[in-house]
């Protein structure tokens, strides 16, 4: 890129956060003593000096119009002196010192379609990605599944009725834009067929050495087709990751007949009790079934129900399954175990059951 013209303002970074802090937050910054969750979505934080701040958390839609942002600003002006924040999972929080505002704010939020909840042992917003709304790589839509699943589990958003937090995430392809790989439940868009190669265009759009080295399984080899440099894919070795497509537009993976989602469970991020864990494969494939992906919704609901009915307090999904063992999880959930569940990538050997500690 050429140098920027002299007088343009550049590299100013974001505005300083301090100007945005609600007054009671600014005053007690670093002086918090403890907190309580008063009910789902409502918290009270108490400072060393006794000051209390109330937080109301509303489910965010993430994909939001400026119209909605303005409505939310209206509520912030009305209830919180024009202050608000978004959480790391895209929910919206209002903070104020007057406890009495809580109920009316919640009622006003409901009016514009935003439920309150997501604190404590509950389900909070699903972290997700672009899907068919914006990304070229998507094997499924993001927002449609998220909406359908949240509609089904909203009871667990509005009530803290689960053994522990349950963090759901969705990514529309293996690039996994989010912490999908470390979620209690992850919904992942997948392809099931090798790339279709546009041999006429490839040499113009892609750097062949980059393409070759992009493949995790070394399935791609350089070749010449109709006199033009191109690549071939050893279809036996391809596991449809689409990494070649990421570096080369002439190798499309998208395939309406075969794309779909897989479900992964038992990951977590916090260090509480168990160290962070990756999610593990539960269901290898469910067809794309827009607009509401009922099979995906059912699968997620089933996993949550089985967990809720069997886990002990504070056990996140991965911790629960680690205690009861995966054979019991498959038995209880009715999900079938098969070859695809068995790891065959780099560290596969370490996932084999290397002991006689077994359940039947």
């Amino acid at each position, binding site marked *: 890129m*050429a140098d*920027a*013209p002299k007088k343009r303002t550049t590299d*100013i*970074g*974001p505005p300083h*956060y301090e*100007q*945005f802090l*609600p007054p009671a937050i600014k005053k007690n*910054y*670093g002086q*918090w003593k*403890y*907190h309580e969750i008063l009910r789902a979505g409502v918290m009270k934080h108490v400072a060393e000096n006794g000051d209390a*701040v109330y*937080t109301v958390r509303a489910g*965010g*839609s993430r*994909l*939001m*119009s*400026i*119209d909605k*942002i303005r409505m939310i*600003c209206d509520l912030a002006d009305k209830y919180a002196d024009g202050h*608000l*924040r*978004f*959480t*790391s999972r*895209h929910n919206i929080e209002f903070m104020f010192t007057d406890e009495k505002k809580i109920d009316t704010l919640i009622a006003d939020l409901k009016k514009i*379609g*935003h*439920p309150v909840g997501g604190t404590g042992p509950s389900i909070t917003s699903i972290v997700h990605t672009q899907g068919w*709304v*914006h990304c*070229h790589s998507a094997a499924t839509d993001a927002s449609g599944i998220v*909406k359908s699943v949240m509609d089904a589990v*909203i009871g667990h958003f509005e009530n803290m009725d689960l053994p522990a937090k349950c963090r759901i995430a969705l990514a529309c392809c293996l*690039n*996994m834009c*989010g912490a*999908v790989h*470390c979620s209690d439940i992850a919904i992942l868009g997948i392809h099931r067929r090798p790339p279709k190669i546009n041999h006429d265009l490839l040499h113009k759009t892609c750097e062949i050495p980059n393409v070759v080295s992009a*493949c*995790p399984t070394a399935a791609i080899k350089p070749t010449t087709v109709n006199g033009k440099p191109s690549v071939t894919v050893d279809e036996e070795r391809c596991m449809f*990751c689409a*990494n070649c497509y*990421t570096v080369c*537009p002439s190798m499309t993976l998208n395939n*309406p007949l075969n*794309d779909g989602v897989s479900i992964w469970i038992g990951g977590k991020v*916090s*260090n*509480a009790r168990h160290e*962070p864990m990756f999610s593990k494969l539960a269901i290898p494939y469910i067809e794309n079934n*827009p607009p509401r992906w009922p099979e995906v919704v059912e699968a997620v609901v089933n996993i949550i129900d089985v967990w809720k009915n069997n886990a002990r307090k*504070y056990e996140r999904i991965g911790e629960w399954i680690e205690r009861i063992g995966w054979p019991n999880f498959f038995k209880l959930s009715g999900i079938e175990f098969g070859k695809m569940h068995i790891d065959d990538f*780099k560290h596969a050997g370490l996932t084999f059951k290397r002991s006689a500690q077994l359940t039947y």
Partner: protein
Amino acid sequence: MADELPKTPMLDELEKGPWPSFVSEIKMAAKRSPASKDLLGILERSYQEKIGHWKHGGIVGVLGYGGGVIGRYCDVPQDFPNVAHFHTIRVNQPAGWYYKTDALRKICDIWEKRGSGMTNMHGSTGDIILLGTSTDQLEPIFEELTAIGFDLGGSGSDVRTPSCCLGKSRCEWACYDTMAACHDFTKNYQDELHRPAFPYKFKFKFSGCPNDCVASVARADMSIIGTWRDNIRIDQKAVGDYASAGVDVTKEIVNLCPAKCMDWDGKMLKIDNSTCRRCMHCINVMPKALRPGKDTGACILIGSKAPIVEGALLSSVIVPFIKMEPPYQEIRDLVERIWDLWCDEGKNRERIGEFIQRVGLGNFLEMIEVEPAAQMVAHPRENPYVFYEEYFEEGEEEAEN
């Protein structure tokens, strides 16, 4: 503007149900924006055909910057001309995602004029995402954004917009000031953020305690997680109150402590702090009774990422403990040593985590001049394939390197 919305029978199904509907959002925007109207149409077609209609990439941007804009074109511009271009703009969010409404409204105003009116609040990395505009709007948008005090985020092989938990602003457990640190790093690395010059992307995330509320351990090349070195502070009376209020201290806390370092006899809660792992569980359950120690700071972990290419990584410990005080000089020095090495030796599209996997942690530490510490490993090696670097030469008595 766009008067009549296209027919979207499938999408309409997604306006039902209690959770906020993104379809309703697009419809709101579509009332005013032709781009959002075509977005509705093209999305409905994707739902019918079960395939996306966006073409692969295309480099667009603003002058002097290499990152911050994701170019996007649809593959059926004849049918949906208003989303022929549909670029995304990433904007550095303020630390902790706090706003005043006037600032937000100004962003909305720009976006009403120059974009689709659709946003993500926020993107997965943490940016404000302005979703859908055309190439000719980029410079004006940039100018207007900087005028109201906002700047672009990262994309491509650069520093990505750092993010942080709300830390000391509202959380009693914050072991350092995450928002201050996040803001400082974001400002300090503006050049690296806007002008891609690395082998690949580099993400910072700041969490105030091991609860890790920004998931830094899973998705940051450098994860800076608050912790403490001294003892958990216990208010024995408050423990008793929890017990009287029905908390089963043995079952819910002592037995779930991963270090098995707690003891509760019904009166006194004892913690062996020398083996406590600072997991936060006991503190989480009894926030009024237990608090992190006073000798607080952070541990720094390095290298997490999504699976592509070599498999997903979690960050791993590189600095077991460090005090977090501006200007964070020690960390800046470390970061720069790491970047220098990675820029010299890293391969194209090799994240720092993958680089360490390739060269080995021991060698990496040597190259960045950091002493090995037992905290950096889950356990010492199991295989006997040790590269002994010291040995005796014939006739010598002392080991040499």
